[in-house]
């Protein structure tokens, strides 16, 4: 009797789905612990020095349009943080009014509002000087 039960549990049609379920559960557990929507990064100037008070704006990437998801300012050490990212595919751009702006970078995440710290800094490029 018990042996048949063991055989049943050991059967691949039971075992494999069970393992899959486990993996899924584990993954969801991990996700629920890491989806705080935090996006951290640093803004550097052309010289490589941290830029304080730069405006970093975040956009959600859709296929045709990018919807604005607000902006924040960098701290004294040039670091910034968003806490409200709800997407898995965002764009970031840093700008210092009148001075310059950084490239727009795409950040793709493995799941929605995954906590992430950018490994590359946003580097400000100076605007071409306008005359007049």
């Amino acid at each position, binding site marked *: 009797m018990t042996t048949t039960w063991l055989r049943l549990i050991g059967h691949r049609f039971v075992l494999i789905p069970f393992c899959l379920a486990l993996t899924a559960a584990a993954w969801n557990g991990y996700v629920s612990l890491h989806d705080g929507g935090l996006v951290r990064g640093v803004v550097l100037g052309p010289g490589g020095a941290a830029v304080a008070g730069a405006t970093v704006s975040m956009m959600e990437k*859709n*296929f*045709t*349009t990018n*919807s604005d998801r607000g902006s924040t300012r960098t701290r004294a050490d040039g670091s910034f943080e968003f806490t409200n990212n709800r997407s898995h595919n965002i764009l970031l751009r840093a700008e210092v009014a009148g001075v310059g702006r950084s490239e727009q970078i795409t950040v793709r995440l493995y799941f929605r509002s995954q906590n992430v710290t950018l490994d590359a800094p946003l580097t400000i490029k100076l605007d071409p000087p306008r005359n007049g």
Partner: protein
Amino acid sequence: MSTHIPSSRITWIARGAASALFAFALLNTPALAQQKKISFLTWNIADQEELFKEWIAEFKKIRPDVDVEWLDKKGPEFPAYYQTQVIAGTPPDIINTQGGLWLEYAAAGGMVDLTPYMAKEAEVRKRFNADYLANWTYEGKNYMLPFYISKTLLFYNKTMFKEAGLAGPPQSFEQMMDYAGKMSKGDKTGMLTLNFDWLYWPFFKMNGVELLSPDLKKATFNTPKAVQTLEALAKATADGGINKISWTGRWVEPNGAFAAGNVGMLHAHSPAFFFIRGQAPWLNAETFGVAHVPGGWATPNSHGLGISKGSKHPDIAWEFLKMVTSEKWTAKFSERRKVLTGNIASDTTTLEKMRKDDPLAASVLQTQLEQTDKLTGNWRLAQDSRVKNAFYPEIQNAVLGRKTASEALKEAETKVNRALAR
């Protein structure tokens, strides 16, 4: 054969017949009446789910007693789904169709005439670009309102133009074919066109060819000029000036090919731009241009919103249509999907805004509001699809070199006239 049939077989046949009758009886009983709820069926625009949810929420405020259901089907399944619903007696109250499909339904008496509604509320009619609105009139009655609008135009690859030493977009059909030839060498092709829903018709129109007599009763396209035109197209296709996909491809292939950067000109309608830009990193104001085809002719391929005859609540449906075509909502829609909606006010504002943050897209959409008096390939014809089906295969025969242009057109003429006679 009919000698000695085992009894079992007879009983089977009998049962079959009986149950058939039974079934037929079943099928003909009217479908159950539904509660106060309207549904709208869109054509392959699932990406706008968010917007539609907002529509529904807003409408709930206006009419708390009504639930709105949204359905979306893509092109190939749309008619199958809609027709099934019609036969079952539960057609979606509001439908959004592309191209000429609405004619099939309107001509068969399946759609509500919106003219009286607009007569009552003139400001609704005034909202829309008259030229586009006019596309949905059949026998003087207006069956649909613009949902989002587009017509054909010419995209061109400036880099390839430079390489071939060409200054700007072609000014005549001959020049167009000539440019196509100049730019085609090796893996590069001079030109592509979309072919569904008469989108290729401007080529004939710019040469003064008329498909049908003004009363739409008989074919008038079998003229020497038409033969010349078709021969030119066939020759260009044979020489590689025109990519063969132009005559067989639907959407992904032509646009994908142009996006790949080795096609000189693409004759398509405005939505193609966004698809292309998504695949073409090379694309910017220096490398990419838009223009009208010579003569400024264009085939509209707009999306309209209409009301099914079978609708239980046509008036509520009309209210819903009024809401969603209002400036407020069309503006939202334009911004999110980067389309023009035919609502004059919101289109103006959208374009102004877009000129700042997306000038290239703006320049594309701008063309859609120019030369709107030169729309072609949009005959208000009950048998539109049948005529198309009679005509286009012969064009294929000619351009892909199975028949000479004159043979093909002669054959097409008889077939089209047959289709018109039905």
